[in-house]
């Protein structure tokens, strides 16, 4: 039964990708939603424990085996639950798209790999899922493959993830070399600080790729080229949280390497703030949300870096709800405005589109950290822990909160308030409304779900910090409402996205590419060409001898034979005159001779 959870989406994907094009739209919709719904229903009754199905690589703990514990149950339910909502939503969103079967097939495929990733009981099987979600992400970002920008974005996402995956592979080798097993529990039992540092750094590098942290976060905003429900599911709620999950899963290794945890926290804090500043100057509604995702993931890494693994997972959980809600609301807006994504061309949608306005405001309030809503509950835990361990990180977190509230409300202002720019938007089908309502409810109440062990409460100190965070959020909203250009002197930095893309390009594409190219050219010219030329000279010398032998001995024999035969045949050739009648005469003579011989015999 446990195995059925990932197998159902795999079945759906296989059917869609093999014969999906021959199936009517209603069957595709029903089938794909049914597989995810089935997986979700099964996950509600899933037993805990370790389930081994088959040996894959014997002796090193890399088996087809699932580890079902509190953490993976949460992830399974999150992936299938949010996945189900987004599948249902996609029925409405993709109703005018002819590639719907391909779309649903990829989406099912993604859910399969994501489940594999969170259910595996060892690093190797999880890596299969890790790569698989990257593949599904690539396919879905490039879903509109007739747009060049979509293809480029898909390549960028795939390549940047590959860079991170190198870290994962090396981490796997490190763990394998140190403990001889890739099984989570067995390797965690043998953790020693010496190799834990290397493994933790490498795993964290892998996580920066998958979860879009510095320096590898620039692929995520570009990934918005995919259909909006995909952005909600893969690039906000689930796949990008794989890095968080993986670090939480490897907490034994990370806890043994406190210095690496410090790096994780620092990178998380800096990414959170940096992405928030970039989100402030975006004009594309989906890009605002994308940078917001990077920023929120940064907060999760901040929590991980402080050793508060369950707090990070808690934020992951609440974030999945409100970020999916925000993306799907944005999708509703985009859908009803015939694909318009530029917020500068929107405005005043509140009157014509109160439904999307309501869901967006709920999502915004949740992410901004208005007390009681989901985002507040988890972010408050992170900030509280940060304040206890390192106040500087707390400052980063609060500043990020303020900026988050600011850019999110700026988005609401630009999209829903102000003067209407558009005619009546289309109405939404029920399949798109229902998931929005469910996610909105989740965004309000998800924070009250008890998960793991919350940090010890700190009495008035904690309430004071809560008040400060709330005040920061309200300030951000107020400033956005008053149309204040917060930090406007630095906009040129934010617009260029802190030059991260340029630095990466300069360092890797140009630096390693061309610098490495120069070195390779030197090796090529000196060593490789030298060897080739030496071999060429030797071959030439040998061939000289060969030529002499050939032209005198071999050719001599052949020519002598030819000449001899030519001389010997000279008399015979004289018979050939070329004249037809000579030949006729010869035939007659021959016939007469034969006749004479035959008659006189």
């Amino acid at each position, binding site marked *: 039964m446990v195995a059925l959870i990932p197998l159902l989406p795999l079945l759906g994907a296989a059917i869609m990708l093999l014969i999906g094009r021959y199936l009517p739209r209603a069957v595709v919709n029903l089938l794909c939603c049914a597989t995810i719904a089935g997986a979700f229903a099964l996950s509600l009754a899933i037993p805990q424990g370790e389930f081994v199905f088959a040996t894959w690589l014997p002796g090193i703990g890399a088996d087809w085996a699932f580890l079902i514990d509190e953490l993976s149950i949460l992830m399974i339910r999150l992936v299938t639950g949010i996945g189900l909502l987004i599948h249902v939503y996609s029925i409405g969103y993709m109703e005018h798209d002819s590639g719907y079967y391909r779309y649903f097939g990829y989406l099912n495929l993604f859910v399969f790999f994501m489940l594999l990733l969170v259910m595996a009981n060892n690093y190797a099987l999880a890596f299969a899922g890790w790569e698989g979600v990257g593949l599904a992400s690539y396919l879905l970002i490039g879903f509109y493959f007739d747009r060049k920008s979509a293809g480029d974005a898909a390549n960028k996402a795939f390549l940047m993830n590959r860079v991170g995956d190198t870290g994962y592979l090396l981490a796997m080798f490190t763990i394998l070399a140190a403990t001889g097993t890739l099984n989570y529990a067995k390797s965690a039992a043998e953790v020693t600080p010496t190799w834990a540092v290397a493994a933790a750094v490498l795993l964290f590098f892998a996580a920066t790729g998958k979860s879009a942290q510095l320096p590898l976060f620039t692929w995520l905003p570009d990934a918005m080229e995919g259909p909006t429900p995909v952005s909600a599911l893969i690039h906000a709620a689930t796949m990008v949280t794989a890095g968080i999950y993986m670090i939480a899963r490897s907490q034994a290794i990370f806890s043994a390497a406190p210095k690496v945890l410090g790096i994780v926290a620092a990178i998380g804090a800096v990414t959170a703030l940096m992405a928030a500043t970039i989100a402030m100057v975006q004009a594309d509604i989906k890009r605002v949300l994308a940078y917001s995702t990077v920023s929120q993931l940064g907060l999760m890494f901040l929590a991980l870096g402080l050793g508060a693994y369950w707090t990070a997972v808690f934020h992951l959980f609440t974030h999945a709800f409100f970020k999916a809600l925000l993306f799907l609301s944005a999708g509703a807006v985009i859908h009803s405005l015939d694909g318009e994504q530029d917020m500068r061309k929107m405005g005043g949608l509140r009157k014509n589109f109160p439904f999307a306005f309501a869901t967006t405001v709920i999502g915004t309030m949740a992410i901004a950290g208005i007390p009681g809503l989901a985002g507040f509950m988890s972010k408050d835990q992170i900030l509280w822990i940060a304040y206890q361990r390192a106040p500087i990180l707390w400052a980063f977190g609060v500043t990020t909160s303020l900026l988050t509230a600011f850019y999110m409300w700026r988005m609401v202002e630009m999209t829903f308030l102000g003067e209407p720019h558009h005619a009546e938007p289309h109405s939404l089908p029920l399949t798109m409304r229902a998931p929005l309502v469910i996610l909105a409810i989740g965004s309000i109440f998800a924070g009250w779900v008890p998960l793991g062990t919350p940090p010890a409460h700190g009495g008035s100190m904690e309430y004071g910090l809560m008040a400060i965070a709330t005040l920061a959020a309200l300030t951000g909203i107020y400033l956005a409402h008053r149309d204040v250009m917060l930090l406007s002197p630095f906009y040129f930095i934010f617009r260029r996205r802190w030059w991260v893309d340029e630095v990466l390009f300069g360092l890797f594409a140009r630096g390693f590419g061309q610098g490495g190219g120069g070195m390779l050219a030197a090796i090529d010219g000196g060593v490789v060409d030298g060897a080739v030329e030496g071999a060429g000279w030797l071959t030439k010398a040998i061939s000289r001898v060969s030529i002499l032998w050939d032209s005198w001995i071999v050719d001599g024999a052949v020519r002598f034979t030819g000449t001899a035969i030519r001389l010997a045949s000279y008399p015979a*050739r*004289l018979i*050939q*005159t*070329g*004249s*037809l*009648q000579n030949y*006729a*005469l010869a035939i*007659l003579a021959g016939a007469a001779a034969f006749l004479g011989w035959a008659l006189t015999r």
Partner: protein
Amino acid sequence: MITTGHYIVLSAALLLIGTLGVLIRRNIVVLLMSIELILNAVNINLVAFSQHLQNLEGQIFAIFVVTVAVAEAAVGLGILIALFRNKETVQADEVNLLKW
């Protein structure tokens, strides 16, 4: 009364005329005509002996020979026209490239 012997004489005469024509005349059209004479000499022989031996096979064979002769004439004349287009001549002794 015309006996089989008369036919054989006629046939031999035609064969001789045809053979000499092939050997002596230079014009290829005439050569082809001479070849027809040879073939018809044979035909006369076949028919005559068919009559003489009261056996129909000879006559049937003569029909075949006529058929083949037609095909041969068609091919021969075709070659002749191709030759004339290339060499502007129908003289057999001027066409003697195929030699040592």
